């Protein structure tokens, strides 16, 4: 869900990290979707070599994914093949939260791993050799083994993965595929994947390879791989080899000869999502519920992978209990207490007596709370009650019914309903009873998806405002910031302290707001 304001935020991030040219190319892609090199050149009006350089930077930093697309040619012509570049909006926004990723790794795997990750985040993608050499140099350590070990732990925990295929081949669907797809989508309402989604999915290495550290130090001869596994090459891949010269134009985006590694954002999102659920349940329920939930989430991995799964992996009561016992606070919990917490969390039991928790439901609770608090601040207590009443059931409520349920005056209720409706948070329907005794009724409803989208859009804008205000405050005090600390005396001391406070206030608000953006966009 990349809205206009989301795009503006993403472009700003790219602009401040990589400069104006790169951000121009990125903006063009974010606004238009995937484009070929020629299309980007004509859309941006930038010289071709500049565009190529910008694309390389964006690829290096995992902000775009190239793919080769097969398209039907004209009459009596063969099919065309062209390379497209698709923007990765989510990855661009992740740049805002690198510090969170580092902190997460620091807490889970320790400082060495966090340092390695920091380097990788700064460089986007690197070979294992480079990662290790860079870390060894920066820490002046003589023990590359320890660094190697840290790298292994990062990959083992899936925080780092092999880079996706540099240029997956998206072939035309065969006639048979096309007809089955049509039939399926008609009856089962399967949302068809876009070409970009197909390309991104196709680029991800197979599960077994994605986290595989080969024994050598990082170079992989592709021809060797071909020899090793000729049978698993699809027709499409073979064809891709034939067309790979097209990509020579862009050099680095061509066939990778070395194994490159990059941060696995999916895993970070998964962990932060779990963390958000645990923190929320600790506040909503109690410490016991938080420990049980944490035990269910931390000890198991969803076999399907992916950052966002609806349910946690089913676990037996005993397995959960064992996991709970491993924590210090959990040791005081009885089996009965664990069972109560499972119930409070709304866990369901399957036919094999295995428990799982509906994570989407927990996320929905978090989202509702964020929006409720927004309604309370923006429109006051009555709106807060109205919003809670209407969001419980997705149906229309009549004005009288609303005012009676919240025990408020009808006129006041109606006034607030109108305000919320004007700001697009509610939908309204007028109905009239037939003549002669014509009565008019107003019915109100919340369209949850629309509200969430609107709130998220506002949050993108607010995040950009916070970032702009930080730069404004820093620029204002540029001279002060450049002064050596020995010359900061008298009134300058308090000015510096004030600047620090302002910066802290703005940046911590931005991080909290970013948590909320993730809640609505990534979780």
């Amino acid at each position, binding site marked *: 869900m990349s809205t206009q304001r989301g795009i503006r935020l993403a472009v700003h991030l790219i602009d401040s990290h990589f400069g104006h040219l790169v951000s121009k190319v990125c903006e063009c892609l974010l606004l238009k979707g995937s484009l070929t090199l020629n299309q980007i050149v004509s859309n941006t009006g930038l010289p071709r070599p500049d565009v190529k350089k910008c694309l390389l930077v964006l690829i290096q930093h995992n902000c775009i994914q190239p793919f080769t697309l097969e398209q039907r040619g004209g009459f009596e012509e063969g099919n065309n093949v062209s390379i497209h570049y698709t923007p990765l909006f989510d990855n661009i926004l992740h740049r805002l939260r690198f510090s969170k990723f580092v902190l997460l790794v620091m807490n889970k795997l320790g400082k060495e791993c966090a340092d390695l990750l920091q380097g990788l985040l700064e460089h986007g993608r690197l070979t294992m050799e480079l990662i290790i050499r860079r870390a060894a140099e920066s820490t002046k350590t003589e023990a590359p083994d320890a660094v190697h070990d840290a790298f292994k732990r990062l990959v083992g925990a899936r925080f780092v993965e092999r880079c996706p295929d540099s240029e997956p081949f998206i072939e035309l669907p065969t006639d048979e595929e096309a007809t089955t797809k049509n039939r399926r989508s008609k009856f089962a309402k399967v949302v068809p994947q876009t070409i970009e989604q197909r390309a991104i999915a196709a680029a991800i290495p197979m599960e077994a390879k994605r986290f595989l550290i080969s024994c050598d130090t990082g170079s992989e001869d592709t021809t060797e791989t071909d020899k090793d596994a000729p049978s698993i090459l699809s027709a499409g891949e073979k064809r891709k080899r034939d067309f790979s010269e097209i990509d020579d134009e862009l050099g680095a985006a061509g066939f990778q000869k070395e194994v490159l590694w990059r941060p696995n954002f999916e895993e970070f999102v998964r962990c932060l999502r779990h963390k958000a659920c645990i923190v929320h349940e600790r*506040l*909503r329920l109690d410490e016991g519920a938080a420990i049980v939930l944490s035990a269910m989430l931390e000890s198991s991995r969803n076999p399907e992978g992916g950052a966002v799964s609806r349910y946690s992996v089913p676990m037996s009561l005993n397995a959960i209990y064992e996991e709970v016992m491993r924590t210090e606070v959990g040791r005081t919990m009885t089996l*009965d*207490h664990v*069972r*109560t917490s499972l*119930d*409070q969390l709304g866990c369901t039991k399957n036919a094999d007596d295995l428990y799982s928790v509906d994570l989407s439901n927990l996320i929905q609770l978090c989202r509702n*709370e*964020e*929006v*409720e*608090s*927004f309604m*309370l*601040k*923006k429109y006051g*207590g009555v709106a*807060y*009650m109205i919003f*809670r*009443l209407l969001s419980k059931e997705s149906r229309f409520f009549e004005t*009288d019914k609303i005012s*009676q*349920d*919240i*025990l*408020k*005056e*009808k006129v006041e209720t109606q006034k607030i309903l109108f305000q919320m409706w004007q700001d697009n948070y509610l939908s309204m329907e007028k109905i009239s009873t037939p003549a002669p005794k014509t009565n008019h009724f107003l019915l109100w409803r919340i369209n949850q998806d629309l509200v969430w989208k609107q*709130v998220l859009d*506002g*949050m993108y*804008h*607010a995040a950009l*405002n*916070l970032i*702009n*205000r930080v730069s*404004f*405050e820093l620029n204002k005090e540029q001279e002060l910031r450049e002064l050596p600390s020995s010359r900061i005396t008298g009134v300058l001391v308090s000015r510096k302290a*004030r600047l620090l*406070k*302002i910066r802290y*206030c*703005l940046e911590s*608000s931005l991080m*909290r*707001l970013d*948590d*909320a953006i993730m809640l609505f966009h990534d979780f």
Partner: protein
Amino acid sequence: MSSATAKRKRPEPKSLTPPLTGQEKVIYELIRSRREEGIWSKDIKQETDIAEAVVNKCLKVLIVKKLVKEVPNYQNKGKKIYMAVEYQPSEALTGGFWYENGKPDEESIEPISKLCTGVLHNMGVGTVEDIANAVRNTRALNFDCPTMRILQLVKALVLKGQLLEMRSTGYGEFSSIPVGAVCYKCVTKTALPKAGAFASIPCGVCPHLSICTPDGLVSPSNCVYYGKWLDF
């Protein structure tokens, strides 16, 4: 709790009726027969076949003699409804049990809601029946307050974020409550709605968000709300 107890006195039968003329008596009996629903003046005329002027005169007399009262109708302010003084207007006329003349009766709602929260706080977790019984046991109310009405208050408290609605699991704190029954619990201080990230910054509720741009007339650098917020 004096205001709570003052609400809705029980109807007391009138034993001493002042002397009335024949027509006054007919009209009075008709009005009384309609109890808490009351009757519209036009309907009186139609049902008794007495001329409008006479009906109006009789009504005036009945009001002076304190036998009949005029009650407001929140649905239709211009429609005059008459009721025998011993009855309280029905919900159709007031807008609901907790309403008076279409306005929420804050003097009753506030103290009784507090009473509900208080008794629930003492019992930990309880169903609406538990709450209603406990409220009745305090003997603070001198009017019939059915459980259904207490439920209305409790539900409003849930919407206010002061009570939590949950289902009993049958053990632990729910051991005395049948499994699956809806029950309520007071919200602890920590669980009270915390200000969300968006609501805590000026832009979250700013009316100018849509026109605020870095180089615009309204911008984050010249923003007055930010000025106030960052006034350290």
